[in-house]
């Protein structure tokens, strides 16, 4: 099983009492609490940690993107990918991912991903996401078009990468009279495509039909298995085999020299489960973004919100894994046995977890955990 390092690049250097005054940390928390000097220092720190994860032996570095929130100030996956393409050597660059429905120019996006793939020597894994509802507000993109735009944007990017230009694109949401990108990915026919999932059966089926790598984020095991069944249904329709390489899973994880130290560090993940997801339901799920089937599945999949769970419960349910290297290796193997996955994505830094703790965790993962799981 392959391990991936992921940091949301949080900007949690403000008094929590200030954040509590607003309906949500997303969209509403004023950016006067954004500290420019701190952010500049943080970017250096977070990029250093990514680079160390590359050196430590992680198979991949996962990068994501959000907007208008202190929970994630990585505001451009392709920009970060371009930096890491130059400063790292071995690890895959997992962009998970570009938010397709809010993108107005898929051709530019195809070019940027291709450029990152070229600079990195063909290390890009190109994840495409539908985004959190908050991103629809940020971009003022109509949520009722979310899935249609996701699919059409995907189709146009794939065509940019796989069919000779120039050609014309007259779709429903995208219109380009002259498509002929002079920047194509190094990997042929194109970088592998990854798709995350939290609750939409349609997305799992869609990804299965295309053989893309499918990764549920922070869901209970039984929900992940159910989503994988939808994925297999889609794959079977297309006559595609499903191997562990098609399936991944994302959790939060940290290791340290002692169990008490690891458990103390793991507490920082509770912030991303609760405060950063707090807010009116219409901000996170604007009208029309989810199909009725998706909404019904989400209600079943999350009878309790992550925010309602205690740290101990989050540990018991494997949303967070924190322990000595031997202990986390054992828990990761358990996740692998439960789900049959080939990729485990570790959200490995959060909130106010400090640099030294983060670096030690990366070092121990590289020295002891990654080798132990290599044969799984």
């Amino acid at each position, binding site marked *: 099983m392959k391990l991936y390092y992921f940091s949301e690049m949080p900007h949690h250097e403000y008094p929590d009492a200030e954040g509590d005054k607003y309906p949500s940390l997303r969209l509403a928390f004023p950016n006067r609490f954004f500290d420019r000097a701190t952010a500049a220092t943080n970017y250096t720190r977070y990029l250093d940690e990514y680079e160390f994860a590359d050196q430590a032996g992680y198979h991949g570095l996962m990068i994501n993107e959000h907007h208008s929130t202190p929970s994630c100030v990585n505001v451009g996956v392709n920009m970060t990918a371009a930096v890491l393409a130059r400063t790292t050597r071995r690890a895959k660059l997992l962009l998970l991912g570009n938010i397709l429905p809010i993108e107005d120019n898929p051709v530019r996006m195809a070019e940027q991903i291709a450029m990152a793939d070229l600079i990195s020597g063909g290390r890009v894994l190109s994840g495409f996401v539908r985004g959190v509802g908050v991103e629809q507000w940020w971009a003022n993109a109509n949520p009722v078009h979310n899935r249609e735009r996701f699919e059409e944007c995907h189709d146009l990017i794939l065509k940019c990468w796989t069919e000779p230009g120039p050609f014309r694109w007259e779709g429903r949401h995208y219109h380009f009279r002259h498509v002929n990108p002079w920047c194509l990915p190094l990997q042929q026919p194109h970088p592998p495509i990854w798709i995350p999932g939290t609750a939409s059966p349609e997305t799992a089926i869609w990804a299965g039909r295309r053989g893309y790598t499918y990764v549920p984020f922070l869901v209970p095991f039984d929900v992940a298995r159910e989503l994988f069944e939808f994925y297999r249904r889609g794959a079977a329709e297309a006559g595609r085999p499903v191997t562990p390489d098609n399936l991944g899973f994302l959790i939060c994880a940290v290791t340290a020299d002692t169990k008490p130290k690891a458990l103390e560090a793991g507490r920082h993940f509770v912030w991303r489960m609760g405060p950063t997801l707090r807010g009116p*339901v219409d901000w996170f799920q604007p009208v029309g973004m989810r199909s*009725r089937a998706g909404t019904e599945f989400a209600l079943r999949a999350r009878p309790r919100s992550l925010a309602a769970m205690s740290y101990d419960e989050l540990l018991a349910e494997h949303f967070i894994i924190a322990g000595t290297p031997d202990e986390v290796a054992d828990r990761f193997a358990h996740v692998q046995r439960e789900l049959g996955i080939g990729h485990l994505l570790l959200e490995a830094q959060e909130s106010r977890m400090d640099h030294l703790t983060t670096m030690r965790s990366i070092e121990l993962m590289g020295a002891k955990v990654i080798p132990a799981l290599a044969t799984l």
Partner: protein
Amino acid sequence: MQATELTIRIAGIDVHTWVGGRGDPLLVLHGAGGNRGFTRWTHQVAERFTVWAPTHPGFGTSGDADWMEGIDDLARFYLWFIDAAKLGQPHVLGQSIGGWTAAEMATMSPGSIDRLVLVDPVGLKPEMGEILDVFYHSPAELRDLMVCDPKTVPDWDELFGQAPSPAEAQIATRNREMAARLTWKPYMHNPRLTQFLPRVANPTLIVWGREDRIVPVECGAQYRRLLPNATLTVLDRCGHVPPLEQPDTFARLVLDFLGDARG
């Protein structure tokens, strides 16, 4: 005056329609909250006019219209509706997004319409203030925001006293989705409508609640300035939905205005 229900098929869409009353036809276009059918004011107006109250495509039990992109599509649709239902040259009354639709219809084909009644319509970018982002607020919040004071709404308990049934909740979600489809961006207005409104010489009554918290009352004056033959009536202690908040006053205003039309 009892209403009957019809289904009229236009552009491949089955349109659920309430019809009732006697006299010249009056086409009533509902707001984003959906079609409430015949309520207290409608019954009064239906004594003198034949009220046609269709449910917009994508709303209520009317058919889907996922292909529609904006209120201009809905306006073209209702011009077709007028022909298909053989309404001749009806009066058109629209509330909120229904008012915006009526205004767009009049700019496209003023001769298809007799008199126009616009009730707290969206459609124009406010010169002062902003149109409340209704999609940012939960349905429960909106229920309170849309009126000046629930205690003064005569049929409040009848309309909102009970929690919606699962079927009603599903329709409410569908209504909200279709409203988002039609009005998301530019939010609740057409920047070009100002250029076309001067074409509309139809006698027009604009009605607004002074305490409208959804659409600033100043938009009423903007509509009046742009429409060559319009009067504006602002109701005190009234919010975004005069037909529900002050049904008797509202019905009187409509009857007085339309009653002048053909003697």
